[in-house]
């Protein structure tokens, strides 16, 4: 008789009746499949409203779920960004849920790019111990946390950090909109306005392209404006895809946007087309600014921008005449989110130009948005951790940077100096996207503890000591999200399917459990549902109702055009003259600032931008999206034919792009659509993590060429201050 020496570890558990049931058998796969498919018609499909995570817009989506699996996605008709539509990314990103290239269990690094699976308990214990050891030795100011914020993260991440006693909470804005935010915040009291595009008559975009960084409603509003006969001017060194909808393209020299806005402001005053009434009632310091503007004539700007003085004059005058239904769109990264040394000042000049048009809070103008009033956790039952005793690192160096967002790359700089000892990265590929990857890698290696929370093995995760697997957005509930806009509203991300990988966890749970391991569990004595109930309390909307609808808009609380709110600037007015800037050591009025570097006759400025099918680098590994890049060679750099000819480069040739930081090989798209001084490279490629098999090896990473740097005003990444040379090489 057979007697196995091997101890049986069989893990299938049979119930008492299994043997009996098994002896009767059941249906095989083929007949099961046909039954399954046939029955599919009658199977109940649950529709769960939620929000997309394909990009930072978080459009409303509806997940259709069948037999416990995700089945279909559609746009949420009520969501103000989606308006019932989903873009290519939104469809494609859902692939992530069932992807095999996900993080499935907590990992501990045991060598260079080598990891060992560990239990959550071990991960929590070790991370907690290390954090506490660092706090003991270096103080809580040596700990930082950075994220690309989502609804839950916005609440849990800073709370966790504050509970540890550290103020060092950062967001991705350092390579997004830090400059614009600083410029706007100190001028209008908000980091951004919202453009009332569809009602506007004259719209100028500076580097921003609705068609390349899509939010369905934005594109629709621009189409609407065009149908209504609005003038749409696109200021961009490259003819971006939105130019189809534009009436005019101004092919500006990269980095010179400030000169153009200053000259247009000059013309506005010269022609007496500024809104004197608005300026008188709602602003301070206009005199000083207008004095400064005197020297910025269109002729002066023509030399810098390459745009004729006539054109600048014509547009400024036309915009002045169309006011207040005329505006410069505020943009995000665009051309002045974090691009040049003069970007903060460009942001300020744009905000001020809009103010001069008197378009603030006007139909067809710039809207200071409103947000729903959300509740907070009960301070008695769930006391908040006390405010950290220290200032956020980077605040001394960059006092103008918007405090809530901070300057995330300061973490790397301080790590290099040995002052920052721990960094937690949540939903953030900082090592590839925030600063020069070589610099970031070295900086991360200098810290005692790096923890990454993500769904994929990103480049940052690869450099981390611990990698904690998040669930995807399809598999999690999140905190209630307040939608700000002309009409305030609420949106909710909800779990559509049970989590695929049992050992993944949503961040609310990760923080709650990690907090316990760190000895600060008392600050997380609530559940996500409990938090949401309390957040919703003042809105009059029940959690149940929000769960059913996914999106609720407060139409009755919509902004009434024409009423100017009290601004959150020190003077409570628009600040043409800023004491804050003066205190920080900068000119109190906007002045022309040269970009840091400029190309010679031989070299180029490397500029970047988005493509409609990708979102940063997070969608690069999605096969259905990356295939489009492959089919249309979208990873190529753009070069003007005049320059290409001189270099002996033809369309499709392989070239070497060389900067002070790196050398890359890539193919060229020779096109009239780009300024001769610039090379354009899309910012979605150059994935190096071998865990991301679809994405790896396609194109090059823009940031590899960007020297690690801070813009003096806002600390932003100066991502366009890059000079490269290009030469043809064999492929």
């Amino acid at each position, binding site marked *: 008789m057979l007697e196995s020496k091997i101890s*049986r*570890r069989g893990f*299938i558990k*049979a119930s008492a009746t299994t043997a009996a049931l098994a*002896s009767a058998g059941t249906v095989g796969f*083929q007949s099961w499949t046909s039954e399954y498919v046939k029955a599919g018609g009658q199977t109940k499909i649950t529709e769960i409203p939620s929000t997309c995570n394909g990009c930072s817009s978080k459009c409303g989506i509806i997940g259709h779920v069948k037999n416990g699996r995700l089945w279909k996605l559609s746009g949420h008709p009520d969501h103000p960004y989606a308006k019932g539509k989903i873009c290519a990314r939104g469809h494609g990103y859902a692939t992530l849920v069932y*992807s*095999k290239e996900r993080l499935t269990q907590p990992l501990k690094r045991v060598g260079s790019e080598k990891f060992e699976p560990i239990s959550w308990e071990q991960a929590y214990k070790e991370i907690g111990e290390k954090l506490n050891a660092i706090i003991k030795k270096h103080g809580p100011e040596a700990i930082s946390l950075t994220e690309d914020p989502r609804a839950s993260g916005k609440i849990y991440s800073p709370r966790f950090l504050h509970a540890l006693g550290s103020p060092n909470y950062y967001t991705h804005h350092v390579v997004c909109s830090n400059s614009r935010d600083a410029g706007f915040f100190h001028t209008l009291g908000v980091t951004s306005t919202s453009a009332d595009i569809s009602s506007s008559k004259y719209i100028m975009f500076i580097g921003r392209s609705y068609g390349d960084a899509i939010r369905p409603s934005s594109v629709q509003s621009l189409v609407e404006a065009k149908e209504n006969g609005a003038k749409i001017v696109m200021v961009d060194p490259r003819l971006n895809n939105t130019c189809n909808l534009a009436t005019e393209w101004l092919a500006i020299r990269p980095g010179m946007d400030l000169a153009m806005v200053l000259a247009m402001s000059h013309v506005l005053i010269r022609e007496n087309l500024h809104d004197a009434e608005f300026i008188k009632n709602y602003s301070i310091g206009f005199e000083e600014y207008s004095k400064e503007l005197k020297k910025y004539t269109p002729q002066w700007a023509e030399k810098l921008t390459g745009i004729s003085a006539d054109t600048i004059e014509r547009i400024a005058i036309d915009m002045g005449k169309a006011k207040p239904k005329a505006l410069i769109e505020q943009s995000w990264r665009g051309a002045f989110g974090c691009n040049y040394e003069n970007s903060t000042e460009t942001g300020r000049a744009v905000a001020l130009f809009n103010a001069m048009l008197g378009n603030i809070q006007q139909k067809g103008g710039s809207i200071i948005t409103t947000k729903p009033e959300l509740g907070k956790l009960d301070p008695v039952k769930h006391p908040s951790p006390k405010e950290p005793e220290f200032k956020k690192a980077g605040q001394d160096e960059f006092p103008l940077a918007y405090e809530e967002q901070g300057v995330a790359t300061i973490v790397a700089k301080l790590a290099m100096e040995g002052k920052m000892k721990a960094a937690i990265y949540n939903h953030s590929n900082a090592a590839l996207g925030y600063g020069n990857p070589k610099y970031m890698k070295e900086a991360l290696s200098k810290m005692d503890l790096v923890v990454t929370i993500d769904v994929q093995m990103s480049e940052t995760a690869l450099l981390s000591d611990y990698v904690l697997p998040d669930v995807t957005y399809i598999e999690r509930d999140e905190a209630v999200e307040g939608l700000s806009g002309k009409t305030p509203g609420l949106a909710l991300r909800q779990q559509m399917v049970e989590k695929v990988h049992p050992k993944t966890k949503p961040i609310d749970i990760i923080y709650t459990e990690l907090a316990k391991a760190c000895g600060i569990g008392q600050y997380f004595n609530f559940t996500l549902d409990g938090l949401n109930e309390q957040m919703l309390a003042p809105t009059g909307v029940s959690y149940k109702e929000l769960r059913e609808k996914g999106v609720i808009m407060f139409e009755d609380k919509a902004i009434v055009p024409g009423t100017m709110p009290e601004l959150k600037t020190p003077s409570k007015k628009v600040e043409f003259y800023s004491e804050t800037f003066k205190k920080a050591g900068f000119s109190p009025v906007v002045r022309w600032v040269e970009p840091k570097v400029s190309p010679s006759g031989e070299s180029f400025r490397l500029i970047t931008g988005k493509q409609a099918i990708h979102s940063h680098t997070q969608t690069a590994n999605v096969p259905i999206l990356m295939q489009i890049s492959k089919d249309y060679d979208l990873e190529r750099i753009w070069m003007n034919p005049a320059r290409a000819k001189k270099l002996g480069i033809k369309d499709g040739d392989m070239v070497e792009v060389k900067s002070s930081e790196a050398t890359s090989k890539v193919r060229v798209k020779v096109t009239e659509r780009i300024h001769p001084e610039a090379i354009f490279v899309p910012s979605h490629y150059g994935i190096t993590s071998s*865990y991301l098999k679809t994405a790896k090896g396609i194109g090059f990473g823009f940031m590899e060429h960007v020297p690690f740097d801070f813009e003096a005003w806002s600390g932003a990444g100066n991502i366009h201050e890059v000079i490269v040379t290009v030469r043809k090489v064999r492929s």
Partner: protein
Amino acid sequence: MDQQDEKKLHTANLFSMLAELYKDPDMEFWNDFCNNKLLDQIKEELSLYGETAQWEVTDIPTEFSSLKKMYADSLGSQGVAIPVESLYKQWTADPSCTLPFAKSKGYLLGDPAMHVKFILNEFEMEIPEEYKSTPDHLAVLLELLSYFILHAPDEFTFHFMDDHFDWLEEFLLRLAETNSSPFYYQMTKMLERLLEAVRKEYIIMA
């Protein structure tokens, strides 16, 4: 006990031992594995199937750490070939599904997994939590097969073999890509041959 039943016992035992090989190796497993204990037993049982199940392993790990590494490089979640059926088959046959990957290979919890879930439900069986997203993992499939050989009607067992092991060829192609040890490739090659031999016997029985 008749001859056929005894052979079934051996075969079932063989599959359950093979199932062990596809699980993430732990210390307990290593104790059974080291000094060729497990492989010798498998070899012994394989003699039942004569030449069809002939088999050669060239690179038997002698250290627990090297076995662990081999597993991670070959079958682990970052290995060249994850032994999960859904990854090698079209995700779903349902034409109404409009997800971007509905007809693609390479995604978890596809129709094969749903079928295994269905079988587990029908038979009131349970598998460990960590296999929840992969009920069609080779280790689970082999254990189920082992169980069915002993407890289910032959026809059903035969169909189960037919339905859930037809992806091994593609799996082997992936395994062949490994730069690491050929150990798992050789094991799986043998498994494939063995399955074919067992399948043939079932055809005769039916």
